[in-house]
């Protein structure tokens, strides 16, 4: 079990090529240091004044000799042994004391915790090296004292990191269980806490050991560490400094060894940290680019501008998430038309692709991993998927504005809300700061925020959820857009506020004569404001029709089940059935109808071939072999 875990960790570590390189460097240096006594090297302390300050590559002295004629290669090898040993021992000492303090403080909590951590804070109130110098001043110069000094100043790092984790571990049930079973405190600390905080100790060791080698060498360089005739890399550098001009090799060579060693150790430290604490992985976070990437193989299917007087016409839109060689088809073959002033709803469960579709329209899906794999998005007849960045930017916020789901996370937390609205205006119109500000205040008044001039200076965290979403709406209205895309704008709000915000959004967009594309999972909302509705399932549109028709006479079995899930007021006898089963995974979509597996009307043909959207007699469009007959209730 342990061995298998070890192999898995090593497999993770090995993926970081730099970390493997660092490990190789350190293994070589440590290996050389270990075999130094058995190598045929000259005595590192043998002075030979006749042959002093010979340059590197001299006969008999590959790296030259120092000011006393001693062989630098031999001294370097022996010095590396000393530096390594001192650095490693200092790390162990710091880890031992620091971790003990951290575990005890975290486990005991209360006054002991307070006392210990205030003491640690005190040590950290000193600049790091200064504290080390102070300790050396107390103990006197010398290699062991330098070791202790560096160990002591590193204790706080271990204590803090370990305490942080210990507090969490100590609060868990198995520690209580151990306590109740009458185990002694020392036993609990040793057998329950220590194994759980070990990863943190290892991470802290791997990230500090390089520092400690560097700093002990530094103290020796200052003449406060290794004393002659003993030598470590730092004291060799210190000796060399005085002869820098005559014999630069004396200082540069030991410095280079320290550098290579410390770099190797730092690379290992990064690698270990990545393996043991994936959250901190430097490469794990990827930055989304300014616009969703469009696949070079995109097939701009469908005729350009087929619908009459359409404001927005989407044809065959496909958006996928490309993660580790797999493609998750979030939206596939989506057709959608929005005419001026119209309100179109997209309804579906979470994961149905409705939000991805909405974000794809202005290419706001994060890349990586998102990518537009196909289709067109025609706005006034021009394909936004082909638009250059500047043109796309000119459309965003000016012609097409978004209202997002959760104003808690979609408003910038550190910018006053008035300034965020003003920025939306100034991004598209050359307006003075003051003019933009007064327009922002007017917008705030429009969305019903009392005392707007004062509220403009407020930060989002100072406002309620409903007010924040009003800000979001004000921001969307700022430039009088032709199309507002609202992505579940009321979902994150209290039920009591939802209706108000919804009405506000609908009223204002009518006032401004803007079309609205409304993304929701809530059929109640659909009936209130939408003219037409698209129902999405597993990334595809499965049914399109007027809001009335969809709600009153759903033809697709999925829509039907979905509507049946909505509780009706005053219908106590209504049986609410969850739809059995789960939607198919987006990277393994089945052939044929994605809903077939959960559908009671399925036949063999449902799981075969492509299934197109088919128009029914009454203007309804449905993607189903066996639509529910009209008038069947």
């Amino acid at each position, binding site marked *: 079990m342990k061995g298998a875990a070890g192999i898995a960790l090593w497999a993770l570590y090995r993926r970081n090529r730099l970390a493997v390189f660092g490990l190789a460097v350190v293994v070589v240096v440590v290996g050389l240091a270990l075999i130094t006594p058995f190598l045929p090297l000259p005595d590192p302390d043998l002075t030979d004044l006749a042959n002093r300050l010979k340059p590197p590559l001299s006969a008999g002295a590959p790296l030259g000799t120092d000011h006393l004629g001693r062989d630098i290669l031999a001294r370097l090898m022996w010095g590396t042994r000393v530096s390594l040993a001192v650095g490693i021992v200092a790390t162990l000492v710091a880890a031992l004391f620091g971790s003990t303090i951290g575990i005890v403080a975290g486990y005991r909590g209360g006054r002991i915790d307070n006392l210990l951590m205030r003491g640690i804070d005190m040590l950290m*109130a000193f600049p790091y090296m200064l504290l080390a110098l102070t300790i050396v001043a107390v103990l006197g110069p010398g290699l062991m004292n330098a070791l202790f000094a560096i160990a002591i100043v590193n204790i706080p790092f271990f204590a803090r990191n370990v305490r942080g984790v210990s507090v969490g571990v100590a609060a868990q049930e198995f520690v209580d269980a151990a306590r109740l079973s009458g185990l002694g405190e020392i036993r609990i600390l040793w057998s329950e806490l220590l194994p759980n905080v070990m990863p943190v100790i290892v991470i802290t060791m791997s990230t500090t050991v390089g520092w400690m080698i560097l700093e002990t060498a530094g103290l020796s360089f200052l003449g406060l560490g290794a004393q002659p005739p003993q030598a470590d890399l730092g004291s060799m550098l210190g000796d060399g400094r005085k002869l*820098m001009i005559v014999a630069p090799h004396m200082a540069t060579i030991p*410095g280079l060894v320290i550098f290579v060693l*410390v770099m190797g150790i730092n690379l290992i430290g990064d690698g270990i940290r990545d393996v043991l604490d994936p959250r901190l992985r430097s490469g794990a976070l990827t930055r989304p680019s300014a616009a969703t990437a469009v696949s070079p193989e995109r097939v701009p299917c469908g005729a350009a501008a087929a619908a009459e007087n359409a404001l927005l016409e989407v044809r065959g839109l496909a958006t996928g998430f490309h993660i580790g060689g797999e493609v998750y088809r979030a939206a596939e073959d989506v057709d959608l038309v929005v005419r001026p002033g119209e309100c179109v709803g997209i309804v579906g469960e979470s994961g149905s692709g409705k939000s991805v579709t909405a974000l794809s329209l202005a290419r706001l899906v994060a890349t990586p991993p998102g990518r537009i794999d196909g289709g067109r998005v025609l706005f006034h007849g021009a394909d936004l998927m082909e638009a250059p960045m500047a043109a796309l930017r000119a459309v965003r916020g000016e012609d097409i504005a978004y209202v997002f789901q959760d104003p808690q996370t979609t408003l910038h937390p550190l910018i006053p809300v008035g300034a965020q609205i003003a920025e939306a205006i100034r991004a598209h119109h050359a307006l003075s700061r003051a003019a933009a500000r007064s327009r922002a205040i007017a917008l705030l008044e429009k969305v019903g925020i009392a005392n707007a001039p004062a509220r403009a200076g407020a930060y989002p965290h100072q406002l309620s959820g409903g007010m924040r979403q009003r800000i979001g709406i004000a921001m969307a209205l700022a430039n009088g857009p032709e199309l507002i895309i609202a992505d579940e704008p009321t979902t994150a709000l209290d039920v009591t506020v939802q209706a108000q915000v919804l009405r506000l959004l609908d009223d204002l967009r009518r006032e401004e004569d803007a079309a609205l594309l409304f993304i929701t999972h809530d059929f109640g909302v659909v009936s209130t404001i939408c003219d037409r509705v698209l129902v999405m399932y597993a990334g595809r549109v499965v049914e399109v029709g007027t809001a009335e028709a969809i709600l009153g006479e759903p033809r697709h079995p999925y829509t039907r089940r979905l509507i049946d899930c909505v509780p009706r007021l005053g219908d106590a006898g209504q049986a609410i059935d969850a739809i059995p089963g789960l939607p198919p995974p987006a990277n393994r979509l089945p052939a044929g109808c994605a809903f077939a597996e959960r559908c009671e009307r399925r036949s063999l043909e449902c799981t075969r071939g492509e299934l197109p959207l088919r128009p029914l007699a009454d203007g309804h469009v449905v993607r189903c072999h066996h639509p529910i007959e009209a008038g069947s209730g």
Partner: protein
Amino acid sequence: MQAYLVRRLIMTVPVLVGISVIVFLVMALIPGDPARAILGAYATPENLARVRGELGLDKPLVVQYLTWAAHLFEGDLGRSYSLDRPVLDEVLERFGATLILSVAALALCSLFGIVAGVVSAVRQYGWADKVLTLLVLVGISTPSFWLGLLLALLFSVELGWLPASGMFAVYGGGGPLDLLRHLVLPAVTLSVVASGVIARLTRSSMLEVLRQDYVRTARAKGVAEYRVIIAHAFRAAVVNVVPVIGIQAGFVLGGAVYIETVFQWPGVGRMLVGAIATRDILLVQGGVLVVAVFYVLVNLVVDLAQHLLDPRIKA
């Protein structure tokens, strides 16, 4: 803001007391007879008796501390044995040089670190990111005392562009320009490690922030990309960067010890190394105390800056 300032000022009092206790204990903790340790080779019976009396070593530790602290309040840090002058005079004279060097290095590392981190994050996995990541790795692994020697060798000995020792030219120096010329190499050397640390943190912080919903909101508004990066993403990331700059101030103040030694910069750090070698404990005490108090002030300023930058922190 004012309430926060007052609270924060009150919070520094125990820290200052703690620092003074630790610095005081330096004397008390010296193994054996501190008077003998101070005097070293000059430990004649008369000298020993005099130093013991001066230090009040015959009294209990608490009384010793209070006496020492009382002197401290009067600006009396004792007299340096090796220099034969008041410790405070010497330390304050030296501290100016350390201040110039540290502030210059801190400004440089903030600039380098933030620019490198932002560029690295925005160009993630591009060649600029790769080059910068490599530079950062080299930077944080380089012994600054070695780098100082290399830079001195290159720019001073080989090229003769910049002076490599002291603060002013011995003959005909003294102006601000002269100071600047002398400052370049030590300040750059001192800033390298901290630049690397700040760059790393800025990069990861920017990457974290760039994924946030509010950055998408800015893009949805049609805000120009440079503004998205600076006014939205960096504005949020800076809240994480500022505390790290504060921590780096501590490393810069400590690292100045090496750099002042390498470049013969007449600051507190070099003074301390000399004082330790000559066992001039009072001078060590004074130097450490002044720099530590300054570091407390730096942290105070950093916290206030943080408070201004992040309105979410409660007063």
